[in-house]
C-alpha cells in the first residue's frame, strides 16, 4: 500500500488534518466522520458551518463557546466629503455613495479594509460584528469542535478559518461542507489529506469527479469511501480503477443502519458496522502517518 510522503507535512507537525468531503450532499460525510472519530479517537471538527449536525451524534459535554467577528467600515459623516473613493474601490459592492451619505451593505463586506486605505479624509474606522460562534467540547477522550454561522449570514469562510486556525493537536477529522465551493476550498487549505465520501448513484459519481479534481489541485493525498454500497452497482469502483484512486472501504446500505442513524446514534453500535469502520481505520493508519 502506498504511503504518501506529503501527509503530515503541515506547518504544525503535531497535527494531522484529514478532510472529509463529498461534492454531493447526503452521501454520509457526517456519518463517516463521527463514526471514524469514535473508532479512532481522532478529534471531530464540523466545518459544515451552515448546517453543522455532527454534534447530534457525538453530543459532546463541557461545551465552551467563542464568538466569531468580522470587521466592517463605519463612516464618520463629519469627516466624509462624499468623494466616493471607498465605494469605487470596494470589490464586493458593499459601499454605495448616495446623494446624502455613504451606505454600507454589511453582509456583502468581506472586511478587506480597502475602503479604509483609499479614504483621504480618515473618515472610515472599523467596527466588529458577530457572524457566528465556535463551540468546543469533549466526547470521551477526544475533542469535538464546530463552527456555527448565524442564520442569514451569507459568508461562512471567516467562521471556517477561525475554526481551523485553532485546531487541537493530534489527528483531526474535518467534516466539510458539501459541494466544491469556497467553504470546502477554505477547509482544504488546512488539510493534510482527504477522504472522499460517495455513493453509487449518478449524482454521487458526478460530484465525486468534481471533488477529485479539487483535491488533486491541492495536491493532497486522498482516497474514497463508498457509502450506501450496493454490490450490484460498481460504477464508482470502475471510475476509481481508471483514475488509480484507492478505495479505503465500502459501507453497506442497510435498513438497520438507517434506523440507528435516524435516532441520532452511531452506526458503529451495530457489530457489523463496527468491524467495517475498524478496518477502514486500520487502512487510514497505514495510508496517513497517524500516531
Amino acid at each position, binding site marked *: 500500500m502506498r504511503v504518501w510522503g506529503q501527509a503530515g507535512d503541515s506547518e504544525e507537525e503535531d497535527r494531522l488534518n484529514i478532510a472529509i468531503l463529498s461534492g454531493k450532499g447526503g452521501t454520509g460525510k457526517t456519518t463517516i466522520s463521527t463514526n471514524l472519530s469514535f473508532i479512532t479517537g481522532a478529534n471531530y471538527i464540523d466545518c459544515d458551518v451552515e448546517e453543522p449536525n455532527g454534534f447530534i451524534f457525538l453530543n459532546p459535554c463541557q461545551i465552551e463557546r467563542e464568538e466569531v467577528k468580522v470587521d466592517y467600515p463605519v463612516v464618520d459623516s463629519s469627516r466624509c466629503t462624499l468623494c466616493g473613493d471607498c*465605494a469605487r474601490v470596494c470589490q*464586493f*459592492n*458593499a459601499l*454605495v*455613495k*448616495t*446623494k*446624502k*451619505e455613504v*451606505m454600507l*451593505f454589511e*453582509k*456583502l463586506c*468581506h472586511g478587506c479594509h480597502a475602503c479604509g486605505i483609499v479614504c483621504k479624509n480618515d473618515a472610515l474606522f472599523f467596527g466588529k460584528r458577530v457572524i457566528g460562534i465556535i463551540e468546543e467540547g469533549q466526547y470521551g477522550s477526544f475533542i469535538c469542535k464546530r463552527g456555527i454561522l448565524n442564520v442569514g449570514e*451569507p*459568508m*461562512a*469562510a471567516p467562521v471556517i478559518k477561525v475554526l481551523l486556525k485553532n485546531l487541537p493537536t493530534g489527528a483531526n477529522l474535518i467534516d466539510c461542507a458539501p*459541494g466544491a*465551493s*469556497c*467553504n470546502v476550498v477554505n477547509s482544504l487549505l488546512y488539510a493534510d489529506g482527504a477522504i472522499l465520501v460517495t455513493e453509487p448513484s449518478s449524482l454521487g459519481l458526478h460530484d465525486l469527479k468534481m471533488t477529485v479534481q479539487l483535491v488533486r489541485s491541492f495536491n493532497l493525498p486522498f482516497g474514497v469511501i463508498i457509502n450506501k454500497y450496493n454490490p450490484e452497482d460498481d460504477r464508482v469502483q470502475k471510475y476509481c480503477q481508471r483514475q488509480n484512486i484507492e478505495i479505503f472501504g465500502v459501507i453497506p446500505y442497510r435498513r438497520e443502519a438507517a434506523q440507528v442513524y435516524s435516532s441520532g446514534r452511531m452506526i458503529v453500535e451495530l457489530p457489523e458496522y463496527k468491524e467495517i469502520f475498524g478496518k477502514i481505520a486500520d487502512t487510514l493508519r497505514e495510508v496517513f502517518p497517524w500516531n
Partner: protein
Amino acid sequence: MKIAVSSIGKDIDSMLDVRFGRCNYFVVYDSEEGLVKSFENCGQVSGGGAGIVAAQLIIDEDVDVVITGNMGPNAFNLFKNSDIKVYRCGSTQIETALQLFNEGKLEELTQAGPAHAGMGTGRGFRGGR
C-alpha cells in the same frame, strides 16, 4: 426630470427588462431637454450585489425616477435614501413605459421585491462566495 428605464436594448423602442439589477442597459430620458441616452449596466456581470452596482450607476446619473419590473431590497433602500422614486411596469417598449408614466398610469413601488429574483434559473446562488 430624468427617468431611467431598465432595458433589454439600447434604444427607446427596445423592450423594458423587468429585472433591475441584471438588466442589460438603462435608457435615460430627460423630459426637459427631450434627450434619450443609454448606458450599459455593469451590475449584470457582478458576482453579487448587482442591484447595488446598478443603483450606484443610476444615482451617479442624477436620475429622479426609475421604471422597472421588480427591485430587490438593497437597491430599493438606496433609492429611498436618495429620494429617487421607483415605478413598476410590465414588459413593454420603453417608449410605451414612458408614456404610461407621463399619464400617471404606473404604480409606485413602495416595497422591495425578493432578493436574487433576477438571477435566472440554473445559476444558483449561495451568497458572497
